[in-house]
C-alpha cells in the first residue's frame, strides 16, 4: 500500500478530491493508481484490505480523462469499453464483498459493496433493479456490524427499487425480505420480522420449490424468532423442517457420490460428470454451518433432549463435513450418530450412515 499526501493547491483547477469511502475532503491518495483519494489513512487501509488491492490498477483507465478520439466510431468504441470495464469491476467488487460476507467479515465487506454499488449506478443508472443486490450486501454488512439505522436505510432503498421495477426475480425479493426480517429481529419487532420472513419463504418457494435449501434460511430465522417468543412447539417444528431440508439435500449428494463410487466404470467414461468440487457453493456452506450448529446447540441444551432429532442432526452434519472434505470431523460425527441411533433407532438413518461411512473411507486423504 502506497500513501501519498496531496496538496489541494496542486490539483488541477476546479477539481475537488473526496474520500472514496466517506466523501469527506481528501488528504491522501493511493500511490499505486494515483486516482483514488481518501480522507485519512484509516479509510485507505480499510479500502485496501477490502478490495482496492485487487482493483487498484484497473481504476486508472476509468478515472483518467478519456483520450482524444478523432472519429465518432472510436469515441463510441471508447464509451463501450468504459462501460464494459465498469461492468467487470462491478462484478469483481460484488464477488469480493459477497465472499467477505460469507466469511463473516462484515467490516471488510462494506467498501467492496460500496464500490459495487457505485459501479452499478454508473452502468445502470439510479433506478434499476440491478442495484438491489449491492444494497442488500450493504444492509447485511451493516446488520452484522449492528448499525441498524444504516441497514434500514439501505433496505428501504432496496425495497423501493424492487417496488418500482416490479419485475424483480423472486430470489432477490426473498433475499430482501430475509434481510428486512433480520433487521426487525435485531430491532426486537418480532411481528414485523415474522411478516418479512414469511414473505422470504414464500418468494424462495416460488423460485426454488418448498423443499429447497434456499428456503431453509427463512425457516431457520423464523424458528429463532418463535424460540425467542417462547413458542417452543412452533420453533421445534420449524427446526425439524430445516434439518430435514438439509438432510435430504445432503443425502441426495451423498447418494450420487456413493453411486459413482460403486460403479467406477461410469466415471471413466464420463469424467467431467464428477462434480464433487462444487456440490456446495460458499453461501450454502456458510448457511449450513451456521444453521445446523445453532440447531444442534439448541437441541442439546433443551431440558428434554430428543435423541432421534439430535441423531438426524448429527448425521446431517457428518454428511456436510464429508461433502466439504473435512474427513476426520465427518468420521467423528458419524461415530457419534451411530452411538445415538443405538439409543433410539431412527428410520432410514442407519442406511444413510452406512453409505456415508463407506464414502468417507474411500477418500484417499482419509486419516485414521
Amino acid at each position: 500500500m502506497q500513501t501519498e499526501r496531496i496538496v489541494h493547491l496542486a490539483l488541477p483547477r476546479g477539481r475537488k478530491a473526496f474520500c472514496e469511502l466517506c466523501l469527506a475532503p481528501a488528504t491522501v491518495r493511493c500511490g499505486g493508481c494515483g486516482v483514488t483519494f481518501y480522507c485519512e489513512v484509516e479509510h485507505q487501509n480499510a479500502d485496501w484490505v477490502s478490495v482496492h488491492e485487487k482493483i487498484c490498477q484497473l481504476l486508472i483507465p476509468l478515472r483518467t480523462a478519456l483520450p482524444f478520439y478523432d472519429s465518432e466510431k472510436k469515441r463510441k468504441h471508447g464509451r463501450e469499453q468504459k462501460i464494459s470495464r465498469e461492468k467487470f469491476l462491478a462484478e469483481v467488487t460484488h464477488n469480493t464483498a459477497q465472499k467477505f460476507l460469507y466469511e463473516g467479515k462484515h467490516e471488510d465487506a462494506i467498501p467492496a459493496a460500496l464500490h459495487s454499488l457505485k459501479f452499478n449506478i454508473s452502468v445502470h443508472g439510479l433506478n434499476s433493479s440491478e442495484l438491489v443486490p449491492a444494497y442488500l450486501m450493504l444492509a447485511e454488512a451493516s446488520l452484522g456490524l449492528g448499525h441498524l439505522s444504516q441497514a434500514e436505510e439501505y433496505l428501504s432503498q432496496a425495497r423501493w427499487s424492487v417496488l418500482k421495477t416490479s419485475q424483480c426475480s423472486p430470489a432477490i425479493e426473498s433475499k430482501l425480505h430475509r434481510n428486512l426480517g433480520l433487521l426487525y429481529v435485531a430491532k426486537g419487532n418480532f411481528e414485523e420480522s415474522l411478516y418479512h420472513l414469511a414473505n422470504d419463504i414464500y418468494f424462495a418457494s416460488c423460485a426454488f420449490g418448498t423443499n429447497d435449501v434456499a428456503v431453509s434460511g427463512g425457516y431457520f430465522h423464523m424458528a429463532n424468532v418463535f424460540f425467542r417468543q417462547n413458542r417452543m412447539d412452533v420453533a421445534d417444528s420449524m427446526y425439524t423442517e430445516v434439518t430435514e431440508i438439509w438432510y435430504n439435500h445432503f443425502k441426495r449428494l451423498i447418494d450420487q457420490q456413493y453411486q459413482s463410487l460403486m460403479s467406477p466404470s461410469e466415471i471413466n467414461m464420463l469424467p467431467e460428470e464428477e462434480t464433487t468440487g462444487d456440490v456446495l457453493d460458499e453461501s450454502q456452506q456458510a448457511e449450513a454451518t451456521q444453521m445446523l450448529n445453532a440447531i444442534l446447540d439448541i437441541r442439546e441444551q433443551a431440558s428434554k433432549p430428543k435423541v432421534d432429532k439430535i441423531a438426524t442432526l448429527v448425521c446431517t452434519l457428518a454428511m456436510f463435513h464429508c461433502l466439504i472434505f473435512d474427513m476426520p470431523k465427518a468420521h467423528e460425527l458419524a461415530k457419534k450418530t451411530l452411538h445415538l441411533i443405538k439409543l433410539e433407532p431412527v428410520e432410514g438413518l442407519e442406511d444413510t450412515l452406512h453409505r456415508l461411512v463407506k464414502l468417507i473411507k474411500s477418500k484417499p486423504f482419509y486419516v485414521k
Partner: protein
Amino acid sequence: MSILPPVQIQCPKEHPDTEEVRCPSPAFARMHLIKGKDAIDRYLAMHIKGLSKQEAAAYRNSYKKNICIDMLRQGYHKSFAELFTLIEKWNALREASGPGSAIWLQKSLEEQPEKLDQLHFFLTSAEAAQRSEYYEEMYLNQLSLAYCFNKSEDRWLRNYFYEQCYKTAQLIKIDGGRKEAEAHSNMGLVCEEQGQFLKAAEHYEAFYHLTVGRIWKDETGRTLNTLACEHLWRIYTLLADKMLQNKEHQQAIKTLIKAFEMAKEADNKNMEAEAAFCLGLAYHSAGEEDTAILKLNAFLELSKILGDYGGIGRAYEALAQVLVSLGEVDEAITYLEKFLNIARKVQLTHNLVDACTFLGNIYNERGNYSKACEYFDQAFCAANVLADLPLVNETKVYCGIGKAHNMMVKVNSHTGAADHVGIIYLLAWKENRNDMCTDPFTVGQSGTVALPDISTDAKEEEPVIQIS
C-alpha cells in the same frame, strides 16, 4: 357385456351438512371482504391513516400470497408447504394435459378465494392439532377438508385429503382403531370410484377386520361392521363381474361365494338374494347348470320371503334360461308363463317385454309360429307402453320375424300346390299385403288386422333374419 346385473358403484358420500363446514371467517377476513374497486376506495378513504405497509402490500398481492404469508407468520409452515405443493401439482397437471382438455378450462385454486379460505382454516387447525399430538382432531380437520371438496372437479383434492386422513388415522391409537377403520372405508370408496377394485377390496377387508366384533355405529345408526360387509359384498360382486368378463369362471364363483357369506353376515336378505342370483348366473355361465338351478331356487325362495316380485320374475327368467340350455324346454315354458303372470300382475312392463320375447323365441324355434307371433305381438304392445324407442324397434323386428315365419308356411303350401286356386290366393295376398292368406273372395270386407306399424328399417331387416 357384463353377465351379472349391474351393481351401482359407490363413491364417498356427500357430507350431510356441507354448508356448515364452511370455515368461520378468520381475523384477516376483512382483507377479502373488500372486493370491488369502489369498496376499496371507500375503505381507503375511511382508514387511510391506519394503512400500514403490510396492509398496502396485502392489496397489491394475490390472494394466494396473502394466505400463504398469513399461515407462515403464525408458524404453520407445513400447511403452507402443503397448500403450495397442491397448487403446483394442479398447475403441473394442467400443463401436462395441455389446452383443450377439461382441466384447462377449470379455475385454478389460486382464483377461488373460498376454497383457499377453507384450506387455510382446516390445514392450520390440523397442524395445530398435530403439534400438540391431538391426532384425532387432526383427522377430523382433514376429513372436513375432504368433505369440503365434493364437486367433480375437486375430486383430486378430496382423494388427496382422504389419503391424508388415512395416514393420520394410523397414528390414532386410543380409540381402538375406529378412525382407522373409517379411513379404510373412505379409501376403499375412493379406490372403488377410480375403478381400482382390487385395492378397494383390500381396504374394505381391513375395514372389516377392524370392525368385526365391535358395536360402533355410524350416524345413521347402522353398525360399522354391517357397513363393511355391505361394501365387501358390493366390491366382490363387481370383481366377480370383471372376472366373468375375462372368462375366469372358477375365480368368479369363489369371489361370489365370499360375497354371499358377507351378505349373510350383514344379515341383509336383499343382498343375500342378490348374491345368490349372481352365483346362479355365474354357475350357469361356467356350465354347471345343476348348481345354478340350486342357487336360483334359493334366490326364488328368498325373493318370495321378501315379497320382491321383480326378484321372483328374474328368478323364473333365469331358471328358464338355464333349463333351455339344458334342453328342458317344456319346463322352461312353465316357468316363463309364471314369470309372465307375475309381470302382468305387478305391472313390470320391462319384465313383461322380456318374458314375451323369450317365450316367443322359444315357440319360434320350435316351429309354433302362430304362438310365437302372438307373444311377439304382446311384447310389442308392452314396449309401446314403455315408449322406449330402442326396445320398440327390437320388438318390431321380432314381430316381423314371427309374422314372416307364420306366413311362410301358408305361402309355401300354396306355391307347392301350384294350382289355379293357389295362384289366386297368392295374387290376392300380394294385392293386399295382408298378414293372412285369406280367402280372396272375402278379402275386401275383412280389412287389415291391426298390423303394427313396421318402420322401413325393420322391414329391411326382415329378410336377412329370415334367411339366417
